[in-house]
Structure formats: structure tokens, C-alpha cells
């Protein structure tokens, strides 16, 4: 069996699940960010794989490109926010930041 679409999708699915796992379980906000990056990467693999094996032309590539760009913007902003949170609350553990509860 040669490597085809399914293989790539399986890889991306696993990557996605791991990213999700990291988002849910890790306390540190930066780790949550890493989980998000993993999820975005898995989505990108899907886009490119469908672009390669599907009938979408190069749109998948472009969407992946856009996702990468947005990921960069997102990482920058999120890290700025994390830094700010650290400055204000001197912790970056997500479970301790529950001011929204009230």
C-alpha cells in the first residue's frame, strides 16, 4: 500500500488530538499556545493534502498559507497577552486565572 491521502489524514488527525490534549490539560498558558499551534499545523496538513489529492487546484496551499500568517499574528498577540497577564497576576497558569467567573 503506497502512501496516499489517508496516511496524511491519519497523521494530521493524531496531531490534532495531541494539540487538543495539550490545550485541555496543560496549566501554563504558553503550553496552551503550543497546543493551538499543533492544531493549526494539523489543519494545514489537511489543506495541503486535499489540495494535492483533491480537485481544488492550489486553493489548499493558499489557505494553508493564510493559516500560517494568521498563526503568526495570533502567536504574537497571544504572547503579548500572556506577558501582560504575567505582569498583572504574576502567574501564567490558566487554571488560576478565573476572574471571569464572578
Amino acid at each position, binding site marked *: 500500500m503506497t502512501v496516499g491521502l489517508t496516511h496524511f489524514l491519519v497523521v494530521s488527525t493524531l496531531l490534532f488530538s495531541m494539540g487538543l490534549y495539550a490545550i485541555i490539560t496543560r496549566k501554563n498558558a504558553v503550553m496552551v499556545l503550543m497546543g493551538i499551534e499543533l492544531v493549526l499545523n494539523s489543519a494545514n496538513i489537511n489543506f495541503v493534502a486535499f489540495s494535492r*489529492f483533491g480537485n481544488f487546484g492550489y486553493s489548499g496551499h493558499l489557505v494553508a498559507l493564510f493559516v500560517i500568517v494568521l498563526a503568526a499574528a495570533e502567536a504574537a498577540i497571544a504572547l503579548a497577552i500572556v506577558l501582560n497577564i504575567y505582569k498583572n497576576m504574576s502567574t501564567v497558569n490558566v487554571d488560576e486565572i478565573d476572574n471571569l467567573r464572578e
Partner: protein
Amino acid sequence: MIMNYYDLIFYLFAAVTLLSALMVVTNRNIVHSAFYLLFTFFGVAGLYVLLAADFIAIVQLIVYVGGILILLLFGVMLTNKITNVEIKTGTINLVPAVIGVGLFAGALLAAVVNAPWKINNTEQAFPTTKILGTLLIQEYLLIFELLGIVLLIALIGAASIARK
């Protein structure tokens, strides 16, 4: 030959990606996680190359390895009191996460493997840069410009948030 080089390389990269991703999510040391992320990104870039997406692969390297990873590392190093190499982070929701994500991954895998994909296995033109560039300033021009604006706003926003 049972397995050609393409498959071999694919399995290699998939293994690198998945193993290092596993290390990322399970390692208790944040800095280790961040460094393992490098190998994940690298593996994903390799997968892109295997999918004949050379431009995306290199953009992945530039943006993720050259940008986001460094940012994350800076983030880690700036938000912890670095006195020792060991920066541990705790975990929460461990049990529900394992169960939930396990079920979710299982369901997704089943769906992905059993789905009747319509596969169009024709070769695509390989140097994709020119094609992507043309598409980018024709059909996707608006999105391209919007992204530029988004990036600018993100830049300004990040700077202003971090300075506050």
C-alpha cells in the same frame, strides 16, 4: 521492492512529527516542550514537501521555526523566573482529557479511514511559487490585502498590549 523511498521518507517524517508532538504534550518541562516543537514543525514541513508543496514547506520553516517558535521560547523565558533548567508545569483535567480526546481521536480516525475519498492522484506542477503568486494577486487579492491589514493590526496590537 516492497517499500519505495517515498513511503520510507513519509514514515520517517510522520514518526518525527508524531513522536515529537507526543513529547511536546506530555513533557512536564515547558522549555523541553518548546524545543520538541521544533522537530514537530520540521516534520510537518517535510510532509509538505512530500505533498509537493515546496513553497508552503519553506514558509512553514520561516514562520514557525524562525518566528513563532522563537516567540514561544521568549514567552517561556520571560514568564518564568529562570533560576534552574527545570521549569515544570502542572496538568489539570487529566482523566477527562484522556478519555475525551481518546474518544474524539478514535471517532475522527474511524471517519478518516473509512470515508470514501475521491482521490485525484494526478501529479501537480512542482515549483508552486509562481502559481501561488499569480493566484494570490488575482483571485485571492482581497484576502491577501486583508491579511496584510490583519498582520499590521496584530503588530500594533501586540506592541501596545505588551508595552502597557
